[in-house]
């Protein structure tokens, strides 16, 4: 089998060789034409190029699709732009030889628009049907599902029989089935078989094809199509549920991250820390700064940002504790006022330092994109990571509080300050550390949030209230409560949203919390000891 493929490949090669020789001149002409062509003419040129050069044109299309195709103003030669450690260089499109000493003004970009991009994707897919790696072939086929025209079908038909890879074959089979099913002149039996095969797929294009078939004039076909759609819908429903659950969990993880720091400063120390949101904000800005410092290592920046953010926010926390909170012990409601003042100051501070505009924090490549489980269910990677991260932080925190001596002291102080003092615990030190810890974790949360939302002076304000709700709902001073509360609220919101819409969902959740607190005045997991009051 393999040999056979190889054989046809080189056959292709042999055949195409003389033609190539003949056509080189024409191709070059096309190239020069491409340079500086009007958007509307370009598609035509590209078509000609595709048929002329076949697979060999791929690199050009790729570069063009990536928006990196330039031409040298002087001689209209095409070059591809690429970045190397921050400085832009240009290379030949077909053989990766570097084109030396080209400055920005020597070259001009060849623009593409959506139409062209669409065309290029298909073209690349068509060409890639015969690519080496099966995965590429498969994605190529799936890409084509939506635009099945006679020509592609022909190609698929003669590739189908001798396709070695099972999955690719499946995909091709699907494509062909779609085609057969849609052909009214074919025998009903064949079409029914085709529909049968379609009913096993979750692809959108398949579903749309079937929906078209329900307008078919043959009752049998209609019936079959509807049956198939039924099946698909059934399966899709299950995945939809999973999807929604994931959304809920993801929102929950964000709430958890935002509130867990507060669970310490507020829950354990009883400080109503209105500046908590700004601690998160500081974390986010730290991420931004880190990325400024290491622009070429965005992928690793996060790993630097996390400890950095922890330190920055943590130190700020210690500072606040030493300067302000320390003087307000036993007056929780007054810490509210002081910390509110602090939050105002911090906001204005970043506004003056970083300007009030949002700052760009780019997502590491390994965090972008999504994990395609199947055509209807795909989980976005960044949220997946953040979910995991939130849980990680939570566990780490629990360990710190339960296993380390700091944790022991913290709990001692939170339960009975004076007794702890009497036993020789350095309460001042513990307070500073606790507050630092809480703030630091808020900072880490900031790193995570910088991947989801905009990094601006108001970042903190957006989360402060939710955080308080989560902590109070969970039970002040109880980490587990915070965890449960965060996920409960997250999931609840997400399952309400489809029916009620975002705003009403939020309102309902709030009202629910208010009523719940009437029933359980100390939250889900009431805490023993006096820290709460």
């Amino acid at each position, binding site marked *: 089998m393999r040999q056979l493929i190889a054989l046809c490949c080189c056959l292709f090669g042999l055949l195409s060789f003389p033609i190539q020789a003949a056509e080189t001149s024409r191709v070059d002409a096309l190239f020069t034409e491409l340079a500086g062509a009007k958007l509307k003419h370009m598609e035509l040129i590209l078509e000609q190029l595709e048929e002329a050069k076949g697979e060999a044109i791929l690199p050009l299309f790729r570069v063009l699709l990536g928006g990196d195709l330039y031409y040298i103003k002087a001689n209209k030669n095409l070059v591809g732009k690429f970045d190397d450690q921050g400085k832009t260089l240009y290379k030949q499109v077909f053989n990766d030889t570097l084109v030396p000493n080209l400055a920005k003004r020597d070259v001009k970009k060849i623009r593409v628009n959506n139409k062209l991009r669409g065309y290029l994707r298909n073209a690349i897919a068509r060409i890639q049907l015969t690519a080496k790696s099966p995965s590429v072939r498969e994605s190529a086929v799936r890409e084509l599902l939506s635009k099945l025209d006679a020509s592609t079908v022909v190609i698929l038909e003669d590739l189908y029989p001798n396709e070695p890879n099972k999955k690719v074959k499946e995909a091709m089979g699907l494509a062909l089935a779609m085609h057969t099913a849609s052909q009214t002149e074919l025998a009903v039996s064949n079409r029914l078989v085709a529909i049968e095969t379609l009913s096993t797929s979750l692809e959108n294009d398949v579903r749309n094809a079937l929906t078209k078939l329900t307008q078919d004039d043959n009752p049998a076909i209609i019936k079959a199509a509807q049956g198939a759609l039924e099946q698909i819908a059934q399966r899709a429903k299950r995945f939809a549920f999973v999807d929604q659950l994931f959304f809920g969990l993801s929102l929950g993880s964000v709430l958890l991250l935002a509130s867990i720091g507060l669970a310490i400063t507020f829950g354990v120390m009883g400080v109503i820390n209105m500046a908590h949101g700004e601690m998160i904000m500081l974390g986010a800005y730290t991420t931004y700064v880190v990325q400024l410092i290491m622009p070429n290592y965005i992928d690793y920046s996060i790993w630097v940002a996390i400890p950095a953010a922890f330190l920055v926010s943590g130190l700020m926390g210690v500072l606040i504790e030493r300067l302000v909170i320390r003087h307000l012990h036993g007056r929780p409601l007054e810490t509210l006022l002081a910390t509110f003042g*602090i939050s*105002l100051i911090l906001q204005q501070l970043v506004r003056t330092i970083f300007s009030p505009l949002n700052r760009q924090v780019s997502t590491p490549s390994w965090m972008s994109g999504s994990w395609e489980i199947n055509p209807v269910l795909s989980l976005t990677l960044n949220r997946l990571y953040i979910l995991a991260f939130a849980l990680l932080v939570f566990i780490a925190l629990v360990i710190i509080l339960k296993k380390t001596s700091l944790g022991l002291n913290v709990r001692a102080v939170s339960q009975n300050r004076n007794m702890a003092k009497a036993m020789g615990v350095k309460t001042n030190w513990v307070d500073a550390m606790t507050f630092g810890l809480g703030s630091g974790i808020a900072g880490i949360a900031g790193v995570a949030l910088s991947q989801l939302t905009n990094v601006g002076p108001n970042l903190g304000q957006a989360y402060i209230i939710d955080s308080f709700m989560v902590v*109070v709902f969970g039970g002040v001073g109880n980490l587990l409560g915070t965890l449960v509360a965060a996920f409960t609220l997250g999931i609840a919101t997400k399952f309400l949203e489809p029916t009620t819409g975002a705003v009403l969902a939020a309102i309902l959740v709030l009202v629910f919390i208010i009523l719940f607190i009437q029933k359980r005045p100390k939250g889900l997991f009431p805490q023993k000891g006096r820290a709460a009051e």
Partner: protein
Amino acid sequence: MSRLTAWFSEGRSSGKHTLPFVVILLGVTLLASAANLFLPADSALYVSTYTITLLGKYLCYAMLALAVDIIWGYCGILSLGHGAFFALGGYAMGMYLMRQIGDRGVYGDPLLPDFMVFLDWKELPWFWLGMDQFWFAMLMAVAVPGLLAFVFGWLAFRSRVTGVYLSIMTQALTYALLLAFFRNEMGFGGNNGLTDFKEILGFSLQSDSTRISLFIITALLLSVIFVISQRILSSRFGKVVLTIRDAESRSRFIGYRTDRYKVWLFVYSAVIAGIAGALYVPQVGIINPGEFSPVNSIEMVIWVAVGGRGTLIGAVIGALLVNYAKTRFTAIMPDAWLFALGAMFVLVTLYLPKGLMGVYGQLKAKYRPTNAKESQV
């Protein structure tokens, strides 16, 4: 009637700041008004209409601060949701003013306010009915906040939700209302709220005389509420309220149903807030969901903290000072005023735990120790 006056006269002994306060307040009010009406615009003593509306606004805030102080300073209940009651009162007034526009709206629709016309609502929602009657609107301005406070307080205080939990719940309350009023489906004008008012009781809101009268009315109401509150708080009821702040369980063991005391005080405070809101809207010219935002409610608490909680006069002074400072700062140093304000809050909580009145008290005690002794009488 005589008995009521008797009841008041008795309070005089305890509320010894009351008289001077009322005198000064009304005095300043009348002077300012006169200066605005009768002096030529170029004289140095002329008080511009801008100042009048500004002062009017301050007085509304002072009234609001009074409400917060009554519940926080005297009963120890820190409400972070008083903005809600204020805004509800304001909306009641706003709806009345909206209905007053009548067919002078840009679309000339006799019944529907403009924002309803261009989001093409077909008929007036039920809760707008009757709002064209001044008395009814004013009734709503006090009844709605009062009712909300009653329901909330009744639930919360009976199940003994206290301290931080209560504060956060009040915050949740106002936040929920904020979101609700943002929704355009609610029929309260969404984010834009209610604005472009023309007349109140037939008097044009643009005219100085109306502004002055609104200003004077605000001052009058403020003093009346001040006197009543002073009296209430110096009655035995007031003493019970203090015991709730200091040792609630004890006063239960003496036989006081503290939860009921709290509920009624909460309602009273909410009603004052509602009145403040209703006076605020015609002087400022717009009411929108922003008033519900939790940050506003926190600011109110800070006014009281600055002035000195537990003393009505302190609340008033705090509100006037902070807002005056805000006005000045936003004009003088638009880029840095938040620093100043923030620093102010921090410093006050750190060094003046009893607020300005606390300082005043200390000074007095320092210079006139004998008097300090009497003051406990």
